[in-house]
């Protein structure tokens, strides 16, 4: 199955996306954020909380005399002076010993003192990546669409039970949904957690517990089960750092989601997303972007061009962070009104269009949610048509829809039914998509072309006006955000001339795509 679409339009969309991202990349190059700096601290080995439960990375970054120089310089200076490890420096800070002033330490000494810690961080990340590669070789996954389900009990131990059960029932990816409150916290909670609201806190210890459980069940099943979480919200890059250290395999990570749907400041978000993606690129973590969110709040038929445009923008930002296509899981969702005649045709058009515009991307396909109701029998069918669309159009990351979507966060039995649904539909129609052609000039093709051309127009407009200005002008998701408004703006840092971040240097640089 192949849509005949205008390849020049696709190239044009990509050029506009680059043009949109170029000026933002310049801004990013000149800025850091408190979250980026905390990520650096974490990568250098700083962990734990103080007596008030405040994470040490926050303590250290908050204590910086010259944030514009970056945390690395201050830490490097302290290490060079005291011979302590970064963690010891942090502990000492809590105990009352201030950080050294980097102005007093030669740049080379700072770099030298930090070098082994930087190296260790990179080695750990590389080792985790290598581990994953080994697992994937020895315990190969079933072919895509990769079946993805969520766990969300609020209690990491219950989640673990649920995750293992889901893996046994056929899940290939487990997502631990975060507690609602977390994305707006300007720190990462600590330790194993058992209380959460509609989800479970993302913490390094929770990552570790879940990864260990999944490694065990992977071995048992003979196929590697992936783990995913959210590098989103005010701690985007920190979560990416922790995920890299704990071998998560994917992360929800979008260049604009926080701005539009969580009212997080756009400058903060742009800088954070970039650094988080530098880490993801090194760690081999697949990002999952959040275009589905355009569809849950507004009409899915109308929003189709916005989804495609956002995919191009997400791609351009990811390329800037050195991410290869294989790590860019662009999002879409099956959210067209089930009562719309021929809605399925529009869904096929959109999904196949994404597949052709981003042939090497591991596309992430979200299930119907908005139009799900308490009629679980009907819901199960809508999920089936979604499953069919996914296998037909070769989606990669397939979030299994739950028949109880409108009712509660998934029960263990719901997940089993959802996985059985996907397995049945994707088995009985496994190669259906390869055995059909779309009628030239037919409804499906015309719809895809219309969406593509509207997306190009949208991107052209944004490129002309500027991304920040466009967001302010309600171009996306019908919300307006101002460049200096929103949460977390005070955490944006204009880099000084002697700003230094060894990871920025070690990871892929910000060059024009």
């Amino acid at each position, binding site marked *: 199955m192949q849509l005949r679409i205008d390849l020049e339009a696709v190239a044009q969309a990509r050029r506009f996306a680059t043009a949109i991202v170029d000026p933002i990349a310049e801004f990013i190059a000149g800025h850091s954020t408190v979250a980026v700096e905390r990520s650096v601290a974490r990568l250098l080995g700083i962990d734990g909380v103080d007596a008030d439960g405040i994470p040490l990375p926050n303590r250290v970054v908050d204590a910086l005399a010259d944030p514009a120089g970056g945390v690395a310089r201050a830490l490097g200076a302290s290490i060079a002076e005291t011979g302590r490890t970064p963690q010891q420096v942090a502990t000492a800070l809590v105990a009352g010993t201030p950080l050294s002033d980097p102005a007093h330490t030669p740049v080379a000494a700072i770099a030298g003192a930090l070098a082994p810690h930087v190296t260790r961080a990179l080695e750990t990340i590389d080792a985790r990546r290598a581990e994953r590669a080994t697992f994937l070789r020895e315990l190969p996954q079933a072919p895509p669409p990769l079946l993805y389900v969520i766990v969300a009990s609020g209690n990491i131990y219950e989640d673990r039970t649920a995750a*293992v*059960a889901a893996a*046994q029932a056929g899940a290939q990816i487990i997502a631990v949904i975060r507690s609602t*409150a977390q994305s707006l916290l300007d720190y990462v909670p600590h330790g194993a957690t058992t209380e959460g609201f509609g989800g479970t806190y993302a913490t390094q210890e929770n990552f570790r517990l879940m990864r260990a459980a999944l490694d065990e069940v992977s071995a048992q099943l003979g196929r590697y089960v992936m783990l995913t979480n959210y590098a989103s919200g005010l701690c985007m890059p920190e979560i990416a750092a922790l995920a890299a250290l704990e071998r998560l395999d994917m992360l929800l990570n979008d260049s604009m989601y926080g701005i539009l749907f969580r009212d997080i400041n756009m400058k903060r978000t742009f800088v954070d997303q970039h650094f988080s993606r530098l880490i993801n690129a090194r760690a081999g973590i697949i990002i999952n972007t959040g275009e589905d969110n355009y569809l849950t709040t507004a009409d899915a038929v109308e929003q189709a061009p916005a989804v495609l445009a956002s995919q191009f923008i997400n791609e351009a930002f990811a390329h800037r962070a050195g991410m290869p296509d294989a790590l860019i899981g662009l999002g879409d969702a099956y959210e067209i009104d089930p009562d719309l005649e021929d809605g399925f045709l529009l869904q096929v058009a959109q999904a196949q269009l994404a597949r052709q515009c981003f042939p090497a991307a591991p596309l992430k396909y979200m299930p119907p949610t908005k139009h799900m109701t308490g009629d679980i029998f009907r819901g199960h069918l809508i999920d089936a048509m979604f499953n069919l669309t996914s296998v037909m159009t070769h989606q990669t990351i397939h979030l299994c829809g739950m028949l109880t979507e409108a009712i*509660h966060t998934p*029960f263990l039995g719901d997940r*089993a039914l959802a996985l059985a649904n996907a397995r049945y539909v994707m088995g009985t129609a496994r190669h259906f998509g390869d055995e059909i052609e779309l009628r030239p000039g037919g409804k499906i093709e015309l719809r895809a072309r219309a969406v593509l051309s509207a997306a190009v127009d949208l991107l052209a407009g944004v490129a002309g006006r500027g991304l920040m200005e466009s967001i302010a002008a309600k171009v996306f998701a019908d919300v307006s955000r101002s460049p200096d408004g929103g949460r977390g703006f005070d955490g944006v840092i204009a880099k000084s001339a002697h700003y230094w971040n060894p990871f920025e240097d070690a990871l892929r640089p910000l060059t024009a795509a």
Partner: protein
Amino acid sequence: MKLVKPYGDTLDDGAMQLSFTLPLEWSEAADEAARALVVKQGFTDVAVVEGRKIAAGFSFFVVYARTPVAIDVSTIAAPRAARDALDMDAVDALIRTRVGRKVRIAGACIGTDAHTVGIDAILNMKGYKGDYGLERYHEFEVFNLGSQIAVEELVRFVKDRRIDALLVSQVVTQKGSDIANFTALAELLEAEDLRDGIVLIAGGPRVTNLLAAELGYDAGFGRGTLPSDVATFIARRMAERVLA
């Protein structure tokens, strides 16, 4: 008295379908445990039509059974809040003639709830399923406060802006958070002596008019509510108030 039982294919056969998971490894004994459970719940003719392993230590069951329980529907009263909806012009006319001034409406998702789609469907100009939202009505002045509004903040707003009708939404129901938030709001309004002065309306997919009444609200609107249902209710209630 009118006794009603579930209907399979014959009046009063009491037929029902159940499904559930047991934390047991599947075996014939697990099927039997499922059967015993449903028998113990008082069902008869219990048939475990599906029982299978869904994970290590977990089995899933589908059961058909008959219930001896009947409900006397003559004792069930659940008046709908949405009745004989008027159209926009009629609502506006009713307010103009009977209230004589614009009705001030505030709406919000309270607590930590961020699901604004439902309340927006009622309030926003655009409306829902082709039915215009309250902002479009000439005689309503609408303040949509958005999501995650603390009840304290909302009560302050009601007081400061002399709100006539307060519309609150709760979509997340996990661990009874909806009930807790609705209750907190009603109590605070009562404490601030504002309750009697306003039309207080609850909404959300799990809300029923009956539940709202139990919580001390004037009305509750659930699944599939249209803006005009709500507009009509507010207009009529305001008109009654003016009379009284």
